[in-house]
Structure formats: structure tokens, C-alpha cells
């Protein structure tokens, strides 16, 4: 290996045998030799700008802890992370561009595929934007059902994250238990919407079909089951000494940083940034439920973990308050067959499982939007990763990234 702090001529001398062979067989000058060495370095992927002690590795695009195709160029000095350059775009599907050719009803099924773990919440954002634009009155029943289903999805999402975070830190048991309990939520949703992951159950104006007769009964059964398990989660992972040592005091984000990077959702609220859209700008039936915004001041990986676990409990509170009070009525408002948004711009934000999702629609009065832009929570959360992991060990990078709970298709869109 050539040394960087040596002059090129010294480097050439070090490669003695090559020098000899080339010098004997041809009229290679020293300049040609240095060019050759430089060329070799570029081919082998060494950046001449990085000093000898510092080197970079590619984490991803296929790495088990990124949970998707995210490529992180990690610059390291020994084991210490110097900086991270995320490379995104490996699952870019051009959803924003595709929306420009689709009617508002058809767009809904594409938004499922942004953050697939909070699929109905994404649907909700577009539905609300379109409904606000058309100024249609939505039946109360729809608002209640949408709120309940959104919270179920949030629970399912956090359960998956809980299991996966355990797995990232080496606790494979947590992974199985997380999935075991998520299955129960999925079953409730499957019975009602017909799908397990990508529901596309909402439609501008209401729901695809009315709720299942067993919907309320199933939810009550599920909540009873889940409440007993929250202590188990604490015993298994939250109080585990290895888990605590690897998360407490690591990846600290202050409130100012969270605001500056736009880190929302449980990750932001763990840094005492009150950013819960459900509380600050209530939509659907959130103003009917009494719940509190989970806020922590720690801002480290462990508090981000705690914030999510507490959100599961808080989501169950919301559901319990609403599930018995679903008003009777139609499951959809009277809508025209072809929806044409009046000319103008519309913005709607909702609280997805990972933070604030914004939908910005520009309409020229056609049945398709002129432009649609999604403000996805994961892209902003990923932006803070470089700051959070600087000067920590590379093993902590996995823990900190896991505590941010990134979903890659939402970053690329």
C-alpha cells in the first residue's frame, strides 16, 4: 500500500519490483510511474484527499441494519465515525412524477408505497388535501374510523420497529415477539380492509367500504391483549443491561438541533420538540380524544426508544376512547365521479408513524394535479444522522440509526 504523506517518487521506489520491470522493459519515466500509481489508487477506490489514518467504507446499499437500500459512505478513523454521507435514490420510483398522470383517486394507492409501515396515514394526508380543496363535508363516522385505523397502523409500525431495534442490537428474541404481536393488529386490519400492509382503504370523501361487523369487538380484544404485554417489552429489552449500555447517552440531539434539522415524530419529541401534528393542528377526530403528547428531554437513543414505546400506549388510549363512540351514518360523502380540484395550491400535514408528513398539491383545475410534493419525515430524520453519529463508534451507528427508525422508500419516494 502506498503512503500518502510520502512524495510520489518515494512511493514509486517502494514499489521496487514494478519499477524495475517497467524500467527495464520500456522507457518509462518517473512521471509516468507516478501517474500509474495514482491511477491504481483511483481504481482501487482510495480517495487521495483522505489522509492515511482516515478511510471510508460503504455501509449498504445492501446492509441488514439499514432495512432497505440506503447507502451510507462512512468515513472512519480506526473505529470512530468521522462523518457520514448518505447516498439515497436506490428505490426511487418517481412517485411524485407519477402522480401528475393520475386522478386523485388513483394517487391514493401510490401513497401507500411511500412509508409502507404507515400506509393509511399517507392515504389520509392526500384524502384530506383533496377534501379540503373540494370543500366537502366528511361524515363523522369516517373521521372516527380513519383515526382508529391510523392509530392501529401506528401501533403496528412501532411494534415492528421495536422488534427490529432489538434485532439490530443483537436481541433476536425481541424481533420475534415484536412480529408476534404485530400479527394481531394486522389481523384486525386484514379483516376490515382486506390487506395486511398496503391497505388503500381511504378514498377522497370517505372509505372504500364500511367497517366490518366485528371491527369494534376485535379492537377491544386486541387492546386487552396488548396492554398486558407492555411490561413484557420492558422486562425483555428496556431494562436489559446490554441494551441500556448501548443506547443511553448515545446519539444525543438537542432541541435546537432537532428543530434545525426538522427532525419530527417520536425522534423529535424525545428531544423535547413539541411537534405532534395530532395535538398542534388536530385533524380527523383527534380533537375528540384526550391524549398527551409524549415529550422527553434526554434526546438520546434510549429516549427515542422510550418515546415510541409510550406512543404505543397513548395510541391505545386514543383508540379506547373512540372505538365505542363511532357514530352511525354513511361511510362516504357524496362525491362526483370525476374529482377536479379548483385551481390553486393546497397543503395538508398529518402525523405519520415517523414524523410529520406534508402533502403539497398544485392544481390547474384538471382531474390530475399539476404537481404534487411530499414532505416525508424520513428524509429530514436521515439528515440528522451525520450529526448524531459523529465521534461515536461504528457499532453505535447501527444503534443510533435504528433509534431513528428510517424507512427507505419514504426517503427516495
Amino acid at each position, binding site marked *: 500500500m502506498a503512503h500518502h504523506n510520502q512524495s510520489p517518487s518515494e512511493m514509486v521506489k517502494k514499489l521496487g519490483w514494478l519499477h524495475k520491470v517497467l524500467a527495464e522493459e520500456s522507457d518509462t519515466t518517473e512521471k509516468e510511474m507516478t501517474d500509474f500509481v495514482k491511477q491504481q489508487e483511483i481504481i482501487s477506490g482510495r480517495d487521495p484527499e483522505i489522509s492515511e489514518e482516515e478511510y471510508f467504507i460503504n455501509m449498504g446499499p445492501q446492509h441488514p441494519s439499514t432495512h432497505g437500500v440506503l447507502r451510507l459512505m462512512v468515513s472512519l478513523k480506526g473505529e470512530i465515525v468521522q462523518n457520514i454521507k448518505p447516498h439515497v435514490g436506490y428505490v426511487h420510483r418517481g412517485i411524485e412524477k407519477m402522480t401528475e398522470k*393520475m386522478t386523485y*383517486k*388513483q394517487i*391514493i*394507492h*401510490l401513497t401507500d408505497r411511500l412509508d409502507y409501515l404507515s400506509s393509511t396515514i399517507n392515504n389520509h394526508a392526500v384524502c384530506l388535501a383533496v377534501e379540503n380543496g373540494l370543500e366537502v363535508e366528511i361524515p363523522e363516522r369516517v373521521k372516527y374510523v380513519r383515526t382508529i385505523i391510523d392509530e392501529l397502523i401506528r401501533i403496528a409500525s412501532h411494534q415492528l420497529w421495536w422488534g427490529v431495534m432489538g434485532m439490530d442490537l443483537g436481541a433476536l*428474541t425481541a424481533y420475534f415477539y415484536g412480529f*408476534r404481536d404485530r*400479527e394481531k393488529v394486522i*389481523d384486525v386490519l*386484514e*379483516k*376490515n*380492509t*382486506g*390487506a395486511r400492509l*398496503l391497505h*388503500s382503504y381511504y*378514498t377522497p370523501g370517505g372509505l*372504500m*367500504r364500511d367497517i*366490518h361487523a366485528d371491527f369494534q369487538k376485535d379492537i377491544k380484544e386486541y387492546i386487552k391483549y396488548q396492554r398486558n404485554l407492555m411490561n*413484557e417489552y420492558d*422486562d*425483555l*429489552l428496556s*431494562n*436489559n*443491561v*446490554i441494551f*441500556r449500555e448501548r443506547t443511553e447517552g448515545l446519539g444525543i440531539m438537542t432541541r435546537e438541533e432537532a428543530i434545525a434539522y426538522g427532525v419530527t415524530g417520536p425522534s423529535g419529541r424525545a428531544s423535547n420538540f413539541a411537534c405532534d401534528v395530532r395535538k398542534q393542528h388536530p385533524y380527523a377526530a383527534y380533537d375528540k380524544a384526550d391524549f398527551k403528547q409524549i415529550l422527553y428531554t434526554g434526546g438520546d437513543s434510549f429516549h427515542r426508544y422510550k418515546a415510541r414505546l409510550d406512543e404505543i400506549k397513548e395510541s391505545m388510549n386514543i383508540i379506547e376512547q373512540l372505538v365505542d363512540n363511532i357514530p352511525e351514518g354513511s361511510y362516504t360523502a357524496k362525491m362526483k365521479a370525476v374529482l377536479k380540484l379548483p385551481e390553486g395550491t393546497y397543503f395538508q400535514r398529518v402525523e405519520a408513524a415517523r414524523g410529520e408528513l406534508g402533502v403539497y398539491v398544485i392544481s390547474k383545475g384538471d382531474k390530475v394535479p399539476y404537481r404534487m410534493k411530499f414532505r416525508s419525515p424520513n428524509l429530514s430524520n436521515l439528515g440528522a444522522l451525520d450529526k448524531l453519529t459523529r465521534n461515536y463508534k461504528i457499532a453505535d451507528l447501527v444503534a443510533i440509526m435504528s433509534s431513528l427508525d428510517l424507512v427507505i422508500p419514504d426517503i427516495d419516494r
Partner: protein
Amino acid sequence: MNSITNYIKTVGKALKSLATGMGVTGYYFTHRSTAITEQYPENRATLKLAERFKGEIVMPHNEKNEHRCTGCGICETACPNGSIEIISNFEVIDGKRKKVIDKHIYHLSMCTLCGLCVDACPSDALDFGGDFEHAAFNRISLTKILNKEGSKLTKDIKE
């Protein structure tokens, strides 16, 4: 001296936390009734799917081999992926020239099961089927013709 007691205390606490966790896993290990593993595909015969399960799009036929599709093409325009193609003919029935479907082609390989066609159909001709084992050796077998051979439009649809 103080640091040594602290050290021992920490070790004790750590061991206790590990034992608590092992207690949880131990419970599930000894209680076989809590096992939730399903023996798929051996349990195919007893497998129960949700009644609304969105497995594929089907066109229900009654016992007289009649379907409800008038060939209006609303599902074709509602579909976001172009998974549905309708080939229709004009036939003279009872002295009137009427549109009759020849083939209702459904590309399962392109379908995202969003449900817009089922929702849009004015005569409830389409429905979701529960079949979910769609693996195939070639792509052509995923293109299906939904109306059965020799099937007709049922008489109870008003136009």
C-alpha cells in the same frame, strides 16, 4: 472501597436484568400453548383467510354461467396501472344492437390490488378473490381472462 462496592452492585443489577429477560423467554419456552407458529403449506386445508382478503380480481358467475359485466369499461379507466383490458363486440339481441364483452382481460402481474375497479363497477361485476398463491413459471400465465367461456350477461341488470 466505594468503587468496588459500586462495581459489584452494577454487576448484580446487570445479572438481575438478564435474569428477568430470561424469565420472559423461559415462560414461553415452557408453555407450549403460547406457540403461534403455523405449519404452512401443510395446513392449507384448514387455512382461514379474512372474507375481505384482497388476493386477486375475479368475476363471479352464477350457476347458469352468467356474469354481470356489461362491458362499459369504467373499470378499465379507473385502473391506475392498465391491468384491465376489455375487448367487446356488438351483437343484436332482441332486435337491439348491444355491447357484449368478448374478453375481460386482467393482468395480475401489473395489478396492485388497490380496489378501484371493484369500487367503480356500476353493476358489481367484479369482486376480490381469496387466492394468494400466485407464483408462476412464466409471465403469460398471470394474464387471465375473467369471463368464463360461453358465459352470458345475466338478465337481472337494468341498463
